[in-house]
């Protein structure tokens, strides 16, 4: 997309008949604008702005995570393909793909809301969304929805290239989509909370590197937790990311460590709890409106 990209909902600029004249009286708010004011426009615009923000730097926000994830796939599958078969009839490379897709989606969904928010907080441009009449739930919905789109874009990129590398079937696409959506939305909300809390880039990087990264890596992306000693199996069950990956993988193979119903309940519960917490923080103006 070019830098001059114009949102579809906005018509091309027309030269104003009043340009150049100094005498036209600008109508005051409420005069003649009523019919043009739409309650969904604010939310839609913020969502669109968030999409455009990551799209303008898509080399960094989409292509680079896709390439990194593919490197994991190439290296691990090359080294381990001959040694490991987690599920009967499923090659290691094919086993790895859903886990890597989900891991990339979750990390990027988190990154999207978190880095957008911390950048506008640190740079001060957050006032542009604090001054308009946007409700806290519109703020929340726009950021979470944009995180889901970013996660999905990265996930699609990883999956397509993974499919080319190791073709496989998707047994339950509905389950796959449900876990993708719930997982990305939960991480989008977590990104908002983290960026609200963080007072500088360093603190946010700490959340990303010491919480999000280990939890996604240790969630069964590279292995079935049944291969772990009992203690670490127990620990894995406390990691919500495990249920996201396990359920997502069920969508691909129809096989999982845990029933997908239980996993989906836990992932949806996590999303709901994170959403309520985020909405509450946004409503209270936590670290946004002093």
């Amino acid at each position: 997309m070019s830098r001059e990209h114009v949102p579809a909902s906005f018509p091309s600029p027309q030269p104003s008949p009043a340009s150049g004249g100094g005498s036209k009286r600008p109508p005051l708010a409420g005069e003649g604008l009523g019919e043009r004011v739409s309650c969904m426009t604010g939310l839609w615009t913020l969502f669109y702005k968030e999409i455009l923000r990551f799209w303008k730097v898509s080399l960094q926000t989409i292509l680079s995570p896709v390439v990194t994830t593919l490197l994991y796939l190439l290296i691990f599958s090359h080294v381990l393909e001959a040694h490991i078969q987690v599920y009967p009839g499923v090659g290691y490379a094919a086993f790895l793909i859903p886990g890597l897709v989900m891991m990339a989606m979750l990390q990027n969904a988190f990154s999207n809301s978190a880095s957008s928010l911390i950048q506008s907080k640190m740079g001060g441009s957050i006032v542009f969304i604090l001054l308009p009449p946007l409700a806290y739930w519109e703020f929340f919905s726009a950021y979470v929805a944009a995180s889901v789109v970013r996660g999905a874009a990265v996930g699609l990129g990883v999956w397509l290239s993974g499919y080319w590398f190791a073709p496989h079937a998707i047994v339950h696409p509905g389950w796959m989509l449900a876990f993708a959506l719930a997982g990305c939305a939960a991480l989008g909300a977590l990104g908002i909370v983290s960026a609200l809390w963080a007072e500088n880039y360093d603190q946010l990087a700490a959340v990303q590197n010491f919480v999000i990264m280990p939890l996604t890596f240790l969630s069964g992306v590279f292995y079935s937790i049944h291969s772990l000693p009992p203690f670490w199996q127990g620990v894995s069950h406390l990691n919500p990311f495990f249920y996201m990956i396990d359920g997502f993988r069920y969508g691909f193979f129809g096989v999982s460590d845990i029933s997908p119903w239980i996993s989906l309940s836990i992932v949806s519960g996590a999303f709901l709890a994170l959403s309520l917490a985020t909405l509450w923080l946004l409503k209270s103006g936590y670290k946004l409106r002093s």
Partner: protein
Amino acid sequence: MSPAIQVQQVHKRFANLHALRGVDMAVEQGEFFALLGPNGAGKTTLINILAGLSRATSGNCAVMGHDVVADYRETRRSLGVVPQELVYDAFFTVREMLRFQSGYFGLKHNDAWIDELLHNLGLEDRANTYTRTLSGGMKRRVLVAQALVHRPPVIVLDEPTAGVDVELRQSLWSFIKRLNRDGHTIMLTTHYLEEAETLCSRVAMLKQGEIVALDTTRNLLGAHATTEVRLKLAPPRLPEGLRAMLVGEEDGCFRLALHRYGELEAVLAALRMAGVEVMDMEVSKPDLEDVFLQIMEAA
């Protein structure tokens, strides 16, 4: 008709600072109003409370009759704020920013007005430029345009001319004056008191979170400052009748205070009568800066 801005008993306490101490004021619709005060007086805090960027610890604020907390959507539609900091979003061009800003206010097709704003602020040929690449003065213009995309009836400018060159300052003020003539209420803060004096019909002065003066510019000038005339006389002797007006004497010059300009006539007549010749004369008119300093010292 409800006031454009109404502030009632507003207090704001931060962890160890009582930033606003019971501020009461109202700005009527159509006024050009100045909020003055030294750094740290609470001007920006008050603006932030009006804009919903900050919350008052106690007290009420309303914009065009809408409570800033309960009716925040209406308040924000009625208010355009030009922030003091030169902030920008590095990802977008000027036109993209103005379109987003319109969208946030619920306006879908606002390009005609955006073009008019760009024209009036001299930004036409920068519309597709990334804001981050613009000079400070240009960034300031973009902030003004962003504050006006939704044609707010009340416009608040927090030090809009800080660090801005003379040309932009003049074009900015002529545009703001036009908006005021068209019916927009303007409230500004500035450290350039001559700007406030020429533009604003009413002035509030804040000091350490309290309003220490709130009156028309004319009344403040009349009540707090006097015209002074500095006379060099030959022989250097002030007639007895003028002694009462003397406020200072240095380098052989006498400084007399005049309450009205017309008193100068009487002074010159008295000098003629006494046979004293005027070698040099300098009249200094009071300005808002004198008033400001007097009030700040007294308060």
